[in-house]
């Protein structure tokens, strides 16, 4: 998947190891958002016409269009349901997460 990746991050062990000032490298994800989800979107890739509307409208950008089929980055999908609601062929189903 072509999406920013979770970084290995070690908590600074002493004050020296802290950043100089309120600065941090960008592209620096140290936690995922998967736990926010109550429902997960599941794409029926056979029905999907690759119109890419879900890719376009996802506020979290978790739908990767680089392959032949769409792939969802479930680490960062919050389960908002915009993709399913906006999918014209109706090929995205919101499935309850089992905890």
């Amino acid at each position, binding site marked *: 998947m072509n999406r920013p990746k979770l970084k290995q991050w070690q908590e600074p062990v002493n*004050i020296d190891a802290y950043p*100089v000032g*309120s600065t941090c490298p960008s592209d620096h994800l140290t936690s995922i958002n998967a736990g926010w989800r109550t429902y997960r979107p599941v794409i029926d890739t056979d029905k999907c016409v690759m119109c890419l509307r879900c890719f376009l409208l996802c506020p979290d950008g978790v739908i990767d269009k680089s392959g032949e089929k769409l792939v969802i980055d479930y680490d960062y999908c919050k389960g908002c349901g915009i993709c399913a609601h906006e999918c014209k062929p109706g090929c995205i189903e919101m499935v309850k997460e089992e905890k």
Partner: protein
Amino acid sequence: MRKFISGNDAVAEGVRLARPHVISAYPITPQTIAVERLSEMVEDGSLKAEYMHVESEHSAMAAAMGVSSVGARAFTATSSQGLLYMAECLPYASGARMPIVMMNANRAIATPWNIYGDQMDSMFLLNSGWIQVYVEDAQEALDMMIQAYKIAEHPQVLAPMMVNLDGFVLTHTYELVEIPEQDKVDAFLPPIQMSKQVMALDDPKSLCISAGNDFNMEFKIKQERDLQNSVSVIESVDHEFHEAFGRKYHGMMECYKTEDADVVLITTGSITGTTRIVVDQMRAEGKKVGLLKLRYLRPFPAEQLRIALRDVKHVGVLDKNISFGYEGTIFTNVNSALSSLDTVPKTTNYIGGLGGRDITKGNIEEAFEQMMSSDHHDKIQYMNVRCEQ
């Protein structure tokens, strides 16, 4: 080259020599002539910089932060109400360790309205994480503009720096000032080095980030530790400056005839010159008086003060400010530093010069005489008051 110029002109000359990339400034009396001169220098090409006409002091500092965030050298200048208006941005810049240099023309704070010099304005910002230096004359103002960038940009420091000069008494008074040559300044102050915490296309950064209750203290402790440690850089830069230009300012503070003194008056800024004359006069009369010119209020030279004042019987602190409800701010700081001495000298707070009120040689002499006498007097003494208190 020597020129007969005002303190504001001297600031502008110093800034020109330091080659900032961007100047963002908003006019306020008595700082205006400094930024007018800088705009002229940009116009005539003698200073290659962007001049941003911002619409407020708040934006002047915010713009300087933008400039600094991409690794460029920023300058701004303000005074009084303007300094207070931009106050929110000061800890912002210091927390992000942005080496911005600012001239502050020390001026009274409203109300009552007053455009003349006292030091109420910068005292409000002692806690802002900025280095604060106070200069005595136009030459020191010019020289400190050059030193300030070298100190602020030093990798061990990376803190913004406020160069304070007394409104009107320094900003508008003409003196003969030595203007250093550009090539010598360039050798002393090389172009700003990209430090690791600024933005870069090949190494993108997020700046002025948030750190919650889980990490915030560690960021602050690091900032505090580095600001404390900047003392050694301040002193070495002054030393290097002396070698390059032949003028020295004695780092954090200057002791004048304090060695065997029974009584010492601590001053900041322009009143130091007057006090020096009084000390010379009284010394000629055989009186053991001395002067301690406090140059830096942040970082605060507590240890140096203890060493310089440990054998003094009585220390006076001249404050051109009041922290309402208590006393002069410098007095509080000095007392705190001296409190850990085995034998703590007596201290008296001389508050004067508010709203530009004169402090005469006579006032200073009276202060010395009062400290030398064994008579009881109140800890806080107002100087040159026009009516009964």
